[in-house]
């Protein structure tokens, strides 16, 4: 029992450190790729780390109207809860640290925690800009939950009717890639769900075109307007870790493959190969869901965010789910 606890704690710390390193890496790649697409050279890969170190040396201003304990606690809770989600998702080609401790439903709920911490921080700032930003963050959160739930439920339903036990467990999803369980119609359905999850990702991360809670040009940073120094550093890092979380979730649900299982590799090199393959996939997902969309689009208004998710993307997601169901029924008949 004690050994289990020590191993879990050590695993949690290691995954946390790994998540933060990959977060810096993804943020660096995002800035370089974005700059290149805008015909700029862009900063070096380690720029996000340099920015973070600088923020830690800057003044940590607490506004006069703020609730100091809540204002300071929000960034700590946000980053800690983002790292905790990583413990339930396969990262770096390895099984989750808490693989038997939670399922996809839990992951879906845990994804709201960093956003709720951000909302609490915004409301506690005592600034009208931050309050409006926090309200927008809540509305955005409500908006993207439904399409996200449709994606997860559709995959779990397919696993259930395929006779796979515990369909909401990520271990079950990983062991039974959903692509192999469906026919041609179902593959179209899964491609649609894949697309839906890629579009949910920028909203989870408050990135363009769904960055209405921050909206620099109209709300001057919105929910983060009063944050500076180490508090701002932690919120920025939270966004980086959430990028790792979302990219890892997309990989776990739709590309749950290990390269070492396909290529004959010496046993000692298998973890390295799987880690590299995971990093390639995560960078690819992050490029499509974050960088490419960010560069190609302008910001939506908050009511457009709700329309996009509750109407268009939900309908697209449900269409994908119906295709998977139709594929199953036709296959059975």
């Amino acid at each position, binding site marked *: 029992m004690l050994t289990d606890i020590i191993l879990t704690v050590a695993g949690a710390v290691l995954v946390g450190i790994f998540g933060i390193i990959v977060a810096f890496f993804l943020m660096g790649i995002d800035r370089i790729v974005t700059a290149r697409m805008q015909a700029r050279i862009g900063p070096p890969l380690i720029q996000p780390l340099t920015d973070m170190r600088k923020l830690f040396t800057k003044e940590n201003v607490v506004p006069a109207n703020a609730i100091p304990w809540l204002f300071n606690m929000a960034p700590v809770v946000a980053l*800690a809860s983002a790292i905790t989600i990583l413990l339930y998702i396969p990262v770096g080609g390895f099984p989750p640290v808490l693989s038997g401790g939670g399922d996809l*439903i839990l992951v879906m709920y845990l994804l709201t925690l960093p956003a709720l911490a951000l909302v609490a921080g915004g409301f506690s700032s005592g600034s009208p800009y931050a*309050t409006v930003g926090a309200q927008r963050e809540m509305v955005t959160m409500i908006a993207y939950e439904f399409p996200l739930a449709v994606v997860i439920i559709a995959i779990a339903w397919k696993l259930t009717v395929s006779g796979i036990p515990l369909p909401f467990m990520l271990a079950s999803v990983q062991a039974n890639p959903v692509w192999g369980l469906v026919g041609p119609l179902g593959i179209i359905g899964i491609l649609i769900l894949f697309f839906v999850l890629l579009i949910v990702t920028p909203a989870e991360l408050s990135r363009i075109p769904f960055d209405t809670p921050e909206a620099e040009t109209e709300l001057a940073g919105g929910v983060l307007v009063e944050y500076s120094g180490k508090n701002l550093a932690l919120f920025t890092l939270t966004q980086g870790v959430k990028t790792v979380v979302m990219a890892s979730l997309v990989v776990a649900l739709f590309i749950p493959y290990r390269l070492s299982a396909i290529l004959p590799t010496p046993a000692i090199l298998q973890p390295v190969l799987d880690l590299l393959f995971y990093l390639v996939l995560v960078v690819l997902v992050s490029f499509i869901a974050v960088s490419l969309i960010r560069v190609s689009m302008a910001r939506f208004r908050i009511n457009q965010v709700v329309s996009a998710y509750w109407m268009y993307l939900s309908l697209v997601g449900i269409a994908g789910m119906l295709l998977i169901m139709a594929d199953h029924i036709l296959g059975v008949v």
Partner: protein
Amino acid sequence: MDMSAPLLTGYGIWVPVAWLAASVVAGIVIYLLWKTGESSYKKGTELERPYLSGNMEPEKGAVHVRASNLYWGFLQALKGYYDVLVPVHTGVLTDYMIWFVAVTAAILVFVGVLS
């Protein structure tokens, strides 16, 4: 009841104690990291005033954003839906009873047709 036992839903699992323990460990590590940063700032200066794009700060009550604004984006996006739904809420009990009976009848007919 064993508090550390996993909650089985039949479709998945959740172990609340494991999540709590992991959150506490992560929280302590991040708090220690946070403590290494600069904590001071010039108190009692302009820095403490909320940023309002260079405008003078109005009285506290005047800049308060009301809770009714919370769902503005939501209500605006689903305006067509709410335009129909809100007038239906008349506040008259008999109206609600009619809706209740009508919807129950519709469900029973639907279930009857399906079975």
